[in-house]
Each structure stands twice: as structure tokens, then as C-alpha cells.
């Protein structure tokens, strides 16, 4: 392992992390098979996707959906499923068919 990481004598006991709110640092985007594709021109920013996303991966700015956090999105597709528009503003696309983020 990298020598930059702390050795066992420096670590808190029991695997405790001495700060809360650290899940953000653990990137889970590589687990994804299907990527949500947001079409901003269709989106009405109803925020249903933001409510339902189990991973806080819908990025909202000033009340508008502005993008998807692909470093954490696991590709579950709930956002696309919940999008109430007939012509969905979020659709799922196979990662292998997507351009690199």
C-alpha cells in the first residue's frame, strides 16, 4: 500500500472515522452499468428525481436540476423511472454506449 496512508499506530481504534459526513469521499460511480442522461431542455425541475435519488446524486442549484453527480451515481435508474414527463427528461443509457464523463 501507499506509504502516504497512515500506519496502524496512527489510526483511531475500531475503524472509527473521527469525522462524520465522510460518505461523500467514497466514490461509488464506478459501480454503474446504466448512466442517467439529463435533457435540460425537457426538464421542468419538479425535483421528483432529487427526492427519490437514494444517493443524493441529483445536483440542484437555485431550485433547478442542473446535472447528475456521476462520481456517486450507481445507476439505479430511479430518477428516470420517477420522471413524470411522458417524454422523459432523464433516460438511462448503457455506460458502454456513453462518452467518458
Amino acid at each position, binding site marked *: *500500500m501507499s506509504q502516504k496512508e497512515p500506519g496502524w499506530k496512527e489510526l483511531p481504534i475500531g475503524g*472509527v472515522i473521527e*469525522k462524520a459526513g465522510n460518505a461523500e469521499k467514497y466514490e461509488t460511480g464506478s459501480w454503474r452499468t446504466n448512466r442517467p442522461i439529463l435533457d435540460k431542455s425537457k426538464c421542468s425541475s419538479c425535483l421528483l428525481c432529487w427526492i427519490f435519488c437514494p444517493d443524493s446524486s441529483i445536483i440542484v442549484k437555485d431550485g433547478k436540476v442542473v446535472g447528475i453527480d456521476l462520481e456517486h451515481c450507481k445507476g439505479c435508474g430511479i430518477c428516470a423511472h420517477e420522471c413524470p414527463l411522458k417524454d422523459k427528461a432523464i433516460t438511462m443509457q448503457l455506460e458502454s454506449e456513453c462518452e467518458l464523463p
Partner: protein
Amino acid sequence: MKVVGLTGNDAVAEAMRQIDPDVCAAYPITPQTELMEKFAQFVSDGLVKTELVLAESEHSAMSACIGASAAGARVMTATSANGLALMWEMLYIAASLRCPIVMSVVNRALSGPINIHCDHSDSMGARDAGWIHLFSENSQEAYDNTVQAVRIAENHDVFSPVMVTLDGFIISHTLERVEILDDAQVKKFVGEFVPRYPLLDTKNPITWGPLDFHDFYFEHKRGQIEALVKAHGIVQSVGKEYEALSGRHFDYFEPYRMEDAEIAVVALGSAAGTARGVVDELREKGRRVGLIKFRVFRPFPRKEIAQALKSLKALAVMDRSYSFGAYGGPVFAEIRSACYGTGLNIPVVNYIYGLGGRDTTFEEIRRLYEEMEEVASSGKRPEEIRFLNVRE
């Protein structure tokens, strides 16, 4: 101090009453013993402030203990046999999360075939889970070990769970003379629990039990190993402090009439009491025999035991469980390993005894000593794995 007649179960429940833990989560049905029933009575009588959580399984009981310990509570529980087996997964988690839980284990055989009587297969199976293991010879020691266990577990260098074992039925259900310390003495001895990372400290929010992969798990395990290395010294210093309070001596093991002994037996639990009687009888006849009553099985006192054996001509190790497919029982394997590299090359014979609660009598242990005298005088490599009182 007062002298009372108590069973092993009563004695541990009494220690728990005096310790008055914050939380006790336990399974209330078989294989749970009267120990917890007695303690539950103390709770319902208002003699303790403990929050008693009666869980739907032993797995849940230990899970609740871990949660309470993480919250910052002093936690105790008790189990036995298959109940301990059902806790298995959580035993490792309690130890790795460094929860200083104290648990009584009433040693009883693991099924199957179905059996509820004494042997050490339950706690011996959990010997690698990261818990400290203290064995008790009688009700008195079960009481004394329970009080000391709190201090050992909660020492900030150790911060690991402790199992205090007592032989099922032979100790747990036998009424014996027990010296009980005053409530105030126990309260002072155990002191206030000072948690290291209490989850209820909302001003300092932390994360417990996160994912721990190849980049950190190994370091955390290395730290956990160190906890039991540190426990080695702490068990002894707590023992000395408790001796000053109780007048009873505590160490990793107790050498009995070992001064000039040529033959010795290592025993743990109630069999040590029987072997003590045999040693007295044989000593009266001028035979140079002794006993090592083991108390601390984890952390294993490797150097001390090898030193204690150095003048012997032959040693028998009694195991009340077997490690299937291994060469001998767990105590035998540890002791033989401890001797390696110390220059000690005496015959060591493993006697497997008492599985499933089979009685181990005075006569059988006398025969064991006599066989060991033959081993010592023959000079030949003996048959090393023997079974005491099993039908061929």
C-alpha cells in the same frame, strides 16, 4: 465483605448487580441460564438502573450490546453453548469495533448431537474472535473474574470485550461458599466507564463501522492484535489491584504445589478443583506432582507458561473440547507451541475429557497422574492424544 452460599449463576448475577451496567441485552430463553433470570429479577426489583433489553435471538442480543456500547454505555450480557454460536458473527464485530462488553459464558457443549451439559466447545470455538477469555474454577472465581473483567475490558489500551467462563452445571448450578465484596467496594473498583468514541456525543459526530477495504482493514486488524498484546499486562495489573481488595491472588494461571514437581497437569475450569485434590493426596504419599490451573486463555501467557514448566519431566494438558482435524485440543496446541524454541523438550500428553458433561472423577485424574509418571520414567515418546473415560 460477606460470606454467602451462591451458585455460579447467582455469584455472577450478584457481581452484575454490584457493577450495575448501563445496558444488558440478552436472550431470555434456553440456552440462556438462570444467571440472566436472576439478574432480570434485580432489574424488576429496582436494585439496578440497568436497561435490560430482551432480544429475540442471541445474534440480536449481541447486536444490541454492540449498539449500546457504541453509544457509550457500559454493557454486560450472558450466554451459553449454542447461544454463543448464534452470536458468532457479532462476536467478531464487537471485538473489531473495540466494544468493551463483558459477557459471562456458561460453558456447555455445542450440539450436535443435542446436549446441554458442560464442556468448553462453545467458548473454545470463539477463541479467535478477539475476545479476552477468563476461565473460572468455582463460583468464587466466576464472581471475582466478572468484577475484574470490567476493568480489563475498559482499560483504554485494551478496549476489547471479555468473556468470563464458568463450567455449566458443575459451577453454574452448584451452591458454594462465596465471599462477596461490599457494593461500595465494587462500585469504586470498577469506577465510571469512560467511552472513547461515544455516538451519543453529538457535539463530536463520528462514524462507526464504515466500509474498510484492502487499504485500511489490515491496519485496523494490526491495531486489534495489539489490544490483546496490551491486555496481557493489564490482566495482571488489574489482578494485583483486585488482590489488594479481596485478599485473593490472580494471575494468568495458578501454579499449585509446583515447587519441586516433576509431573504436572494443566487444567482449566472446574476440573482444576478436582486435580487439586488429587495433587494433595499424591503429595501426601511423597509423589512430586503439581497442577497449573489456567485462568487467562486469551491473551495466551506464552512466556510465563513455558517458564513454569521448565523443571518438569512430563506434562499432561487437559482439554474439554476438541479441534477437529487438528493435533489435539486447543489448550494442548497452545502450550506445545509455547514450549517450542525454549529448549523445553518434555513429553506433553493431551487428555481430552468430559465432553458433553461426562463426569471427570478424582479416580480418573489420579489415573492420569499415574500414567504421566509412567511416561516420565519410560523415556519413550508417549501416545500423545488420549481420551479420558471414553468407551472403546
